[in-house]
């Protein structure tokens, strides 16, 4: 276990790139949770987490120790990525491409675990209201998954489609809901600094 602080790890990673991996180990899950609560979309959350760390790694030499915790700098990049996601609806992969890192599909088990990170209870009412703005297939998938609390296998059976398709409908529906909530200024989670 590395005893160095986040700031020290960031500074050390300039000459010793492996030090950055320790920073990743410390904060990757928390970062994933941060994105999951804001995007409501496991796929988007995973992608944004990977891109944020890739971007931070690529620009670690630009980090300046201003006395604040190094992790604040990391979340600055995260906020930037999130803003772009809400603005354009797409996730940039430029940093990962630059570093030669692959863009892998999210494993099925992770999909459900990431959803568990998001506490949907507080936004359930808002969700019901926002459901009206969705396409029919997305609305049905979301109702079964989020409101009725069914598993993906059962959702797929009810909708008469493959499990992957059901997952995709839920994912797109959640992303749309997240955008709607964002536009209405509803906070899905507290800021992590």
């Amino acid at each position: 276990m590395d005893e160095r602080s986040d700031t020290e790890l960031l500074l050390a990673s300039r000459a010793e790139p492996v030090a950055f991996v320790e920073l990743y180990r410390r904060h990757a899950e928390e970062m994933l949770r941060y994105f999951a609560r804001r995007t409501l979309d496991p796929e988007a959350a995973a992608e944004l987490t990977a891109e944020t760390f890739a971007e931070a790694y690529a620009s670690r030499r630009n980090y300046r120790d201003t006395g604040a915790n190094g992790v604040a700098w990391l979340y600055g990049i995260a906020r930037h990525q999130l803003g772009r996601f809400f603005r354009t609806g797409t996730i940039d992969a430029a940093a990962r491409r630059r570093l030669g890192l692959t863009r892998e599909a999210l494993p099925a088990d992770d999909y459900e675990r990431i959803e568990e990170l998001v506490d949907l209870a507080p936004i359930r009412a808002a969700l019901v209201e926002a459901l009206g703005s969705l396409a029919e297939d997305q609305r049905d998938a979301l109702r079964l998954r989020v409101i009725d609390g069914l598993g993906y296998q059962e959702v797929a059976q009810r909708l008469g489609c493959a499990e992957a398709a059901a997952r995709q409908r839920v994912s797109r529906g959640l992303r749309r809901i997240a955008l709607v909530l964002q536009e209405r200024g509803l906070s899905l989670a507290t800021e992590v600094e």
Partner: protein
Amino acid sequence: MDSEFEFLRRFEGELSARAKVDARREASPKPTYPRRWKPWVAAAAALLVLAAGIGFLANSNFTGSQASMAAVGSAPRPQAPHSQAFLGIDPQTGGSTTKQGITTHYAAGTVANQNASASPAPGFEQTQQGRSSDGAPGDLSKIIRDGQIAVTIDDGSFKTKAGAVAHIAAVNGGSILSSSTEGGDSGSFTVRVPAANFDKAMVQLSQLGTVDSSASQGQDVTAQFVDLKAHMKIYLSRRKVLFGLMGKATTIGQSLTLQNQLDQVQLKIDQITGQLNYINKQVAESTIKVDLHEPGAAVAQSTDSVDNPSLGHAWDRAVQGVLNVMAATLIGLGYLIPLLIIAGIVFVIVRLVRRRRIAAEAA
């Protein structure tokens, strides 16, 4: 990493591998020039070369249009100040007059078939102050005119044609200043003719055979001439005053001092008179360098390299070359920069539109 998320574990593996590669790279010496700079350097170089090309093209078009304008015009007219500025000469300073040359080149064979008795051939006529040396009434401009012509003559006709050159010089009131022959089939002649007959002599010389090249230069010495005349006027009035004072001198000391000053003024007057006479003579007569050669004979070297083989001249030409390239690049950039700005604006607009379309599709 002990994360329950397989995705995070996989990404950690990739990030770790990348970090190890970078660590190894950090340990090895860095290249002097990162590879990603090379495309930028190449692009900048290509841009400059393109700019220089455009500049040369624009420059040649500009000078070409000037030459054609001069060829079309029939009446002599003073050289416009802007064209003096283009040649790098300050039109306000008299000192530039000796450098102010006007050169006209003619393509091979263009004047070969002109009638000797006719007026100067079209395109051969010197419209740029060309006739001013004749001294048109009221025209005070002084132009020294020189020319070169290289002619290929028929086989075995060199002796006859050499005689014809002497005849042309004599008919036009001039003479052959110098001549040299090589192997009995080629030779060079320096002919002096009155400036009034310069064009006529050039046309007659072009009748000797097929013209390989022909050029004429006009050197404007008007400002220098006017300047000398003004000085002369001043010195003459000063001499008059000194003569008056000499008559009133009462002591030997005064007489000696005045005499000394008078001598200096007289010396100046003599010098200026000599210079004015020289200019008048130069203006009154033109020099034509004639190269005659039979087919296959060695062509005489250009008069520049024969007459002025100096390092100084070579250096001047080299500097002029550098300045020409820089000027052409600057002109080319003037054309390119607005285009690049427009292209940049279009690029930004297209990118914005694409982003918005993607965002709309995603929504």
